[in-house]
C-alpha cells in the first residue's frame, strides 16, 4: 500500500514579513557602508592632496638647500679664485712674462724691428727670475743665436734641454725650421720624436708627421724622421699581439670603404632567394676592391697642394709651445680652471667638474703611432691629415694593408655560396649559375600539377551536406504523404542546401584551378628572371673579385721612399739674414 503524505500549505507570511524587514535593514546597512566608503574616499583624496603638498614642500626645501649650497659654493669659488690667482701670480707670474716675451721676440724678429741688444738684455733679465722654467734658457739661446753668440747659444740650449728635453727639442726644431736651418731642425725633430712613446702619442703630433711627410722640414727632416718612424714600427712589431691588432685595425679600416648595393639591384633575388643577405654581403665584399683601388689611386694621383698652410700650422705649433703652461704650473692651473667653471656654472660643482673632466680628457687623449697613421691614411678628414701624409702613411703601412686585404678577400671568397636556393611560393629549387634552367622549369611545372591535384583532392563536400540531402528527401516525401506544405518546404530547403554546397564547391575548385593556372603562367617567368639574375650576380661578383688581384699588384708598386714628398718650405727669410 502506498503511503500518501499530505502537506498543507504553510502560512509563510511571518517569515516573509521578517525577510522584508531584514531586506530593509540590509538596505540601510548598505547605505551606511556606502556613506563610509564615500568618507574614506574623501579622506583618501585629502591624504593624497596633503602628500602632494608635502612632496612640493620637500622639493622646494631640497631646491632651497641646493640653491643655498650653490650660492655658498659660488661665494667660496669667488673668494678662492682670488687667493689662487695671487698665489699663482707669485709662483708662476714670471713664467707668463717669459712666454709673452718669447712670443714678442718671435714676432719682432720676423718683422726685424727690434735690436738684438734689447732682446738679449730682456732675455737675460728673465733668466734671473725663473730658475726652473725651460723656456728661459730657450729664450737666451734664441737671442744669442740672433746676436751670433754661438757659445752662449749652445750653453743656454744645453740648460733648456736639461730642464725639459721634450719641449726644448721641439722648440729648437721649430725655431730652426722657422729660420730655415734645415739640418738643425731635422736633427732636433728626430731627437724630439725619439723621446716619444710610440704607443702614447699626442694627437697633435699628426701636424708634425704631416709636416715631415710634406717636406716642411726639408729632405734631411724627411729621411731622419722616416728612420725614426721605422724604429718605432720595428719596436711596436716586437710587442706581443701588436701585429694581430694592426692587421685587424687595417681590416676594419679597409672594410669601412665597402659600398652598398642600390635598392633596385637584383629585385628578383632579393624576393625569391632565401640567402639574399649572404649574396648581398659577398657582392659588396667583391665591389670593395674597386672602391679601394679608386680610393688609393686618388691618394697617389696628382700634385700635392702647396704646404704653405701646413708651414703656418707648424708655426702655430711653435706659438702654442711657447705659450703653453709648464708642467709645474699644471696642478694650480687645474684648480683655477675648476674654480672658473664653478663660477660660470653659478656654483654647480658637479657640472663644473664634468666640464673640467671633458677638457682634461681632450688634452690627454693619446694614440699609438700606427693608429695615427691608419687614421691619417683612411680618414684624413677626421685625423686632420693632408694628402702628403696620407701617401706617407699608406706607403709605411703597405705590408699590413696587403695582409689585411688578403684576409678580407679570402674571407669574402670563402663565403660565396656554391648553391643558390630559390623559393617561389611553395616550390623550392637551387642552382649554381643558372645552368639547370630546363630542369628547374620542369620541376616547377610538375610541382604545380602535384600541388593542384593535392589541393583539389581536399575540396570535397562535408558530411553535413549529405545528411541535409538525405533528411531533406525523406522530409519532403513525408510532407507529400501527409500533404503538409510546411514539411515539404523544410525538406526542399534541405535538398537545396545540398545543391548550394555543391555549387560552392565547384566555385572553389574553379578558383583553385585559376590560381594554379596563374602560378603555372607566372612562376616560370619569375624563375627565368631569378636565374637571369643569378647569372648576372655571378658575373658581377667575378668582375669585382678579379679587381682584388689588380689592387694587390697596385699595392706592390707603392714604396715609402717614392712617396716622401719633394715640396720644401723656404722658411722665414727674416731669420736668414
Amino acid at each position: 500500500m502506498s503511503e500518501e503524505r499530505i502537506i498543507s500549505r504553510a502560512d509563510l507570511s511571518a517569515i516573509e514579513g521578517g525577510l522584508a524587514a531584514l531586506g530593509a535593514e540590509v538596505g540601510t546597512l548598505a547605505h551606511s557602508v556606502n556613506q563610509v566608503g564615500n568618507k574614506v574616499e574623501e579622506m583618501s583624496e585629502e591624504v593624497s592632496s596633503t602628500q602632494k603638498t608635502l612632496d612640493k614642500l620637500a622639493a622646494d626645501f631640497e631646491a632651497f638647500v641646493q640653491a643655498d649650497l650653490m650660492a655658498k659654493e659660488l661665494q667660496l669659488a669667488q673668494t678662492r679664485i682670488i687667493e689662487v690667482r695671487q698665489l699663482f701670480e707669485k709662483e708662476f707670474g714670471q713664467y707668463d712674462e717669459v712666454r709673452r716675451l718669447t712670443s714678442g721676440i718671435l714676432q719682432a724678429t720676423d718683422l726685424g724691428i727690434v735690436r738684438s741688444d734689447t732682446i738679449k738684455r730682456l732675455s737675460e733679465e728673465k733668466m734671473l727670475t725663473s730658475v726652473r722654467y725651460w723656456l728661459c734658457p730657450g729664450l737666451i739661446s734664441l737671442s744669442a743665436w740672433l746676436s751670433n753668440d754661438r757659445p752662449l747659444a749652445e750653453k743656454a740650449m744645453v740648460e733648456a734641454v736639461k730642464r725639459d728635453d721634450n719641449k726644448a727639442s721641439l722648440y729648437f726644431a721649430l725655431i730652426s725650421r722657422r729660420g730655415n736651418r734645415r739640418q738643425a731642425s731635422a736633427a732636433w725633430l728626430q731627437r724630439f720624436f725619439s723621446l716619444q712613446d710610440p704607443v702614447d702619442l699626442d694627437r697633435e703630433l699628426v701636424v708634425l708627421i704631416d709636416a715631415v711627410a710634406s717636406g716642411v722640414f726639408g729632405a734631411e727632416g724627411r729621411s731622419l724622421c722616416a728612420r725614426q718612424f721605422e724604429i718605432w714600427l720595428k719596436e711596436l712589431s716586437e710587442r706581443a699581439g701588436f701585429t694581430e691588432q694592426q692587421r685587424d685595425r687595417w681590416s676594419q679600416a679597409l672594410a669601412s670603404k665597402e659600398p652598398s648595393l642600390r635598392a633596385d639591384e637584383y629585385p628578383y633575388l632579393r624576393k625569391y632567394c632565401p640567402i639574399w643577405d649572404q649574396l648581398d654581403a659577398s657582392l659588396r665584399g667583391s665591389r670593395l676592391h674597386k672602391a679601394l683601388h679608386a680610393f688609393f689611386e686618388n691618394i697617389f694621383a696628382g700634385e700635392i697642394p702647396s704646404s704653405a698652410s701646413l708651414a703656418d700650422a707648424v708655426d702655430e705649433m711653435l706659438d702654442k709651445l711657447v705659450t703653453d703652461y709648464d708642467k709645474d704650473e699644471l696642478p694650480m692651473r687645474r684648480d683655477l680652471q675648476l674654480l672658473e667653471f664653478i663660477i660660470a656654472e653659478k656654483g654647480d660643482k658637479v657640472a663644473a667638474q664634468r666640464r673640467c673632466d671633458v677638457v682634461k680628457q681632450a688634452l690627454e687623449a693619446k694614440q699609438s703611432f700606427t693608429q695615427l697613421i691608419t687614421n691619417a691614411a683612411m680618414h684624413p678628414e677626421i685625423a686632420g691629415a693632408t694628402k702628403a701624409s696620407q701617401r706617407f702613411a699608406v706607403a709605411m703601412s703597405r705590408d699590413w694593408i696587403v695582409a689585411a686585404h688578403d684576409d678580407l678577400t679570402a674571407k669574402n671568397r670563402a663565403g660565396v655560396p656554391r648553391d643558390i636556393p630559390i623559393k617561389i611560393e611553395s616550390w623550392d629549387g637551387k642552382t649554381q649559375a643558372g645552368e639547370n634552367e630546363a630542369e628547374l622549369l620542369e620541376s616547377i611545372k610538375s610541382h604545380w600539377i602535384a600541388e593542384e591535384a593535392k589541393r583539389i583532392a581536399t575540396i570535397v563536400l562535408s558530411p553535413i551536406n549529405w545528411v541535409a540531402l538525405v533528411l531533406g528527401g525523406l522530409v519532403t516525401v513525408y510532407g507529400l504523404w501527409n500533404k503538409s506544405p510546411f514539411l515539404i518546404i523544410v525538406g526542399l530547403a534541405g535538398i537545396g542546401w545540398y545543391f548550394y554546397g555543391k555549387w560552392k564547391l565547384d566555385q572553389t575548385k574553379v578558383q583553385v584551378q585559376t590560381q594554379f593556372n596563374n602560378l603555372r603562367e607566372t612562376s616560370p617567368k619569375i624563375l627565368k628572371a631569378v636565374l637571369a639574375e643569378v647569372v648576372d650576380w655571378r658575373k658581377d661578383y667575378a668582375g669585382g673579385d678579379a679587381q682584388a688581384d689588380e689592387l694587390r699588384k697596385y699595392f706592390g708598386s707603392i714604396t715609402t721612399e717614392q712617396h716622401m714628398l719633394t715640396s720644401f718650405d723656404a722658411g722665414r727669410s727674416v731669420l736668414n739674414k
Partner: protein
Amino acid sequence: MSKAEIEARLRQKRSANYIRTMTQLDAGCHCQDPRAVEALIAAIQQELPEVTIDKLPIGIVCRCFLGEDYEVHTLDRTGGIIQHYRRSQALPPLLERARSLASHSQYLFVEVYVDSLVAVRSNGETSYINQ
C-alpha cells in the same frame, strides 16, 4: 702554444718544398698508394713542427684537374685518404666550407682547421680566415 701564437704561425709563408709536395695531390695514383698519402701527411707535420698534432689541419682541399666534371679533391689527414669530388658531389661537412676558396684560381690549396681556414697561394703566401 696559445691561440694567437698558433694563428701567427699558421699565417707564415709555406715553404717551396711543402708547396711542391701538396701539388702532387692531384696525381691520381696517390689514391691507391697508402705510402704516398703517409708522405703527404708527414709533409704537413714537417711544415708545421711547432703545432701539436691536435691543432694540425684536419684536411687539405685543392682544385682538381682530373677532368671537366671534377671540382676539388681532398686529403683527409685523420682518415688518411685522398678523394676526388665531382661538382655534384658533396664534401664531408668539415671540408665543405673550404670548397669555394679551394675552387678559386688564386689559391693552390686550402688547409682546413677545426676553427679556421688557411688559403695558400702558389708562392706560399697565406690568408687566414677565422670561422
